[in-house]
Each structure stands twice: as structure tokens, then as C-alpha cells.
């Protein structure tokens, strides 16, 4: 069981802020593929990974990061803080 969090434009495209999924995905990429096959709105939200960022357990990582032991995965566009 992994908690998924979506922020900003990703949240708006997928239509929710959080959900919990059961998955055997080994990497973030695998998880993205699984989600994209679920529904068109996920496919749309994940269509351009270069314009997305991912954090695993609140740490910014690459899409090939392992999900081993992960409890929370967050997807969002590039940050615009400051």
C-alpha cells in the first residue's frame, strides 16, 4: 500500500489530491505506467515526464528511483517557490 499525492496541475488533471494504491511496481516509472493504463486522465497527467517531478517519502528523486519500502509518492510540476 502506497499513498499517492498529487499537487498543482497534476492534482487538477487527475482530479484528486491523494489516493492509496496497492501496487507491485518496483520503480516510480513502473508505477507511472500502471497508473497511466488505468484511466485516460492519468495517461494525460503523466504524458510528459520531463515536465514532472517526483518525491518518494518527501525526497525529490528521479523516475527510475526504487519504490522498495516507500510509503508516500508525490507527483507535481516543477516547483515555483521563492
Amino acid at each position, binding site marked *: 500500500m502506497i499513498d499517492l499525492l498529487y499537487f498543482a496541475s497534476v492534482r487538477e488533471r487527475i482530479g484528486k489530491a491523494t489516493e492509496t494504491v496497492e501496487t507491485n511496481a518496483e520503480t516510480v516509472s513502473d508505477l507511472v505506467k500502471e497508473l497511466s493504463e488505468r484511466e485516460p486522465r492519468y495517461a494525460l497527467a503523466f504524458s510528459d515526464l520531463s515536465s514532472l517531478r517526483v518525491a518518494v517519502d518527501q525526497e525529490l528523486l528521479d523516475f527510475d528511483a526504487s519504490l522498495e519500502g516507500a510509503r508516500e509518492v*508525490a507527483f507535481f510540476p*516543477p516547483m515555483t*517557490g*521563492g
Partner: protein
Amino acid sequence: MKVRIQKKAFDFGNEANIFATNQANMGAIVTFSGIVRSLADIRLSYMDIEHYPAMTEKTITKIVNEAANRWSLGDILVIHRFGRLAPGDLIMMVATASKHRKEAFEAAEFLMDYLKSRAPFWKKEVTKHSRDWVVSKAADETALKRWR
């Protein structure tokens, strides 16, 4: 070292004074503050700032610690707001104290460069006719190269 993530407004001058007053042996104080621009051309109504609470303070504290390791600093302050802000409102501020101006300036620029593209905040500009997420700039990513 102090990091505050908050919804409510803060008094920049007052925070800057408190920060500066506590630096007994630091001669140089640098502050940066970011303000919601009025953007007269698009008639900005307000700005909404979304963030990722569980990650925000953690990430900023990491950036602050990195600055404390790289430069000899007496203190660092970071305040960042989220929620709805009106044109003219303060979004955030950083302050650095050091014995020498070069270090205080560099550390403040480092903090800003990392806050800009590593702290999990997202800004949306809302007008009467539009609601647009602010798009990150390639220049902000490039700015980080200076520190590698």
C-alpha cells in the same frame, strides 16, 4: 537557524530587525523578500500558493543546513507563506548574518536559488478571466549550476 512555513502574513521589517538585533558579532546582514507583483497588464486578483506540508519544512531545513555548512554564518532565517495572497503582499523572506558581506550575500542567493526550484511550492495567478499556474523558468534551474 529558523524556518517558518505559515499561512498568515508577517512583518518583514520587524522580522529583519529582530534578526539583526540578535547578531552580536556579525557585521553583515542580507535580506531578500519576495512580493506578489501587481501585474497591471493582466490585472491580477490574487495569487494562490499550494505546498506539500510534509515535505516543505524538511526540504527547506536541508537547504538551510547546506548553507550553514558552506559559509560561516551567524544565523539564517527563512519565512515562506502559502494560501491566498493579494498583490503587494509579502510571499517570503530570507535573512543571513555573517562577519563579511560576501558570505552573507552568497548564502542568501544560494538559499533563494534552491528555494525557487527545490522547495515544494506552486503558485497560481488568478485574474477575473484566468487561473494559471506559474511556469518554472529554465533560468531558475540554470541558476543552481553556480553552486555545484
